[in-house]
């Protein structure tokens, strides 16, 4: 990958990046969950593909969003590893 750099042995900035990445990834699901009942009831009037919109967002939306977050995390974290030279030798 083009972002690869020679190894630098300072784990601290690496960990700062990783920690930020973790917070960003977990923030949305953890914030979304407590508001889920509110979303489900407020948006139950409208429909999407036949589903009540609130139900669709809470069920399909949460799962699709979760898949997106984890796959984004895998790619991002791999970039972070390579940027800091802390990646595995393949």
């Amino acid at each position: 990958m083009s972002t690869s750099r020679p190894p630098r042995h300072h784990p601290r900035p690496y960990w700062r990046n990783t920690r930020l990445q973790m917070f960003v990834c977990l923030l949305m699901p953890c914030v979304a969950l407590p508001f889920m009942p509110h979303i489900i009831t407020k948006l139950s009037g409208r429909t999407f593909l036949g589903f009540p919109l609130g139900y669709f967002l809470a069920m399909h939306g949460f799962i699709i969003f979760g898949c997106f977050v984890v796959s984004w995390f895998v790619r991002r974290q791999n970039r972070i590893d390579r940027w800091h030279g802390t990646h595995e030798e393949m």
Partner: protein
Amino acid sequence: MAMPNTFRPFSPRQINPRLGIYFSIFAAAFAGLTLFLVILEQLGYPDSWLRLVMIIAPAAFAAVIGIASISSAPDDYFASGRRVPAAFNGLIMAVTSLGATGLLGITGTYYLVGADAMCLSVGFFGGLVLAAILLVPYLRKFGAYTIPSYLSRRFGSRLVGIVAAVVLIVPVFLFLVAELRIGAALVKSLLNVKRGSLIWPAAIAICITVAPGGMRSLTWSNAAWSLIALIALLIPASIVSIVLTNLPFAQLSYGSLLSGLADKELASGLEVHRILPLKLELPDVNASAVSNPFAGYFGAFGRIGYVLMAFCIMLGVAAMPTMLTRAGTTPGVYESRKSMAWAVFLLGLILLTLPAVAVFARHLMFSEVVGKPPERLPEWLLALFQSGQARIDMQAPKITLQTVMLRRDSILLVMPALAGLPTALTYVAASGIVAAALAGSSARLVTIANMLSEDLTNANQTGSKLSTYRLPLARAALGIVGGFAAWMALQWTVDPLRLVVWSLSLAGASGLPVLVMSIWWKRINAPGALAGLIVGFGVTLTCIVTDAVLDGPGWFGIDSTMAAVFGVPAGVIAAVTVSLLTPAPDRETRALVRDMRIPGGETIHDRETRLARSARPIH
């Protein structure tokens, strides 16, 4: 680019390049068997034979794969040689984290209480997301064979390992008992076994499957079982979806049935009740009536109860040692992250299918059963009444959705029959559930046995007297745990779904705070970890036991299925307070944590084993 035609010596970390072909053949054979049985059924072959073949053959074939994966190296026995590709690992994680109890219990709950059951789905799904980001890559870098072994090395204290093993065995064991009960009950009802139980044969079969190769046998038999479970869930759901909506994607197509369903429910007198926000009672295992319209949000589970239940399950799934030890089987940290992405995707697919099955079942109940005179009820339903799987309220003037009571755990199997599909498809669904039960219970059995033999003895220490008997000891532990679990499953007639939810609460409260802090907070030390484990576990267990004994409304009106609500904060507070009051971890431990956080370099556990071996004097 063409591969250079050079000989490459076999490296132990190399993934078998033909795995995809083998499992494609297996999946094709399963699909072929299904079609073959549908044909045989139409030709009039006896039903009992078809049933036996469909349930036993795929499960037995996967068991043979497990037995064939015999291995004698500790690396193979405890970590499957660390060469399981990400997709297979993800598939196994997705299916075993739910197990048969999750598949049947969640579908049944959707059917009985409607969309409120979403909190269970969201919890299971969120748990894998949480584990993927917080725990799995780091545990893979560490590479310990069991979670207590990891904790013991991370905190430099054998006591932490022993306490963690004792505390974590309990939730895994509860889940194991639930899986054995639900699987054996299902096979018993399908094969019309009149007396006795199939729990003992099931436990013995699982032990025989996983004992030859430990984690390696577990991985490949579970990959096959999980594949069956996935296919057997998706095929009937897709066929029914085509029949009802002309679209093959059940996950998205059932929306078009919802408005019609709501009208019918309203006409049959199903109403949304106003309930307390904290109320959450999981439906009973016995045949019970539909209590809430499908889109009657928060008429069965309260709003706060919904959120708390989702959080409890999420934390429990993330801390389940069964899933976390699977992290160690991937070839590297990057692969372990990728395997979590696969797991999240496949679990999402499964979880989106379950409400579709429940909606199809409700819709078909209205069109096939409701309003019919009792003498014109379909034959399969009469058979269910006779076997006690379903009940009908004879006092009621006419048949409605509420008067035909189905068992919660039978909805997934009833759906193909409701849609008028060939009986062979019911057996396909059943074989999937049996496969999920076998996968779920074998994974938990191996986890417990490894925790027992590795962490409660000193067999894993190079040079100790027991170390020569490391694998025989682990295999003996498998037998003991299998026997004890079978005995408990026979004695203890608790609802499996309740057992699973309790088990997740216990795992989340006792394991998660310490596991997360051991990676993300360098300051946590051995006394803090001990306090976190014991307090989290103690508070949750007390909550569950007092609720079960007193049969009351639970602490502060919160049902004991959500006991982690008390356990997790208690565990976090205990771990943080005690850590801050005692001396900080030494330089060596801090270096270990720093090493664990970086993906590059050798797996910590493997490096330490290699160094210990080379340091040992040669006799």
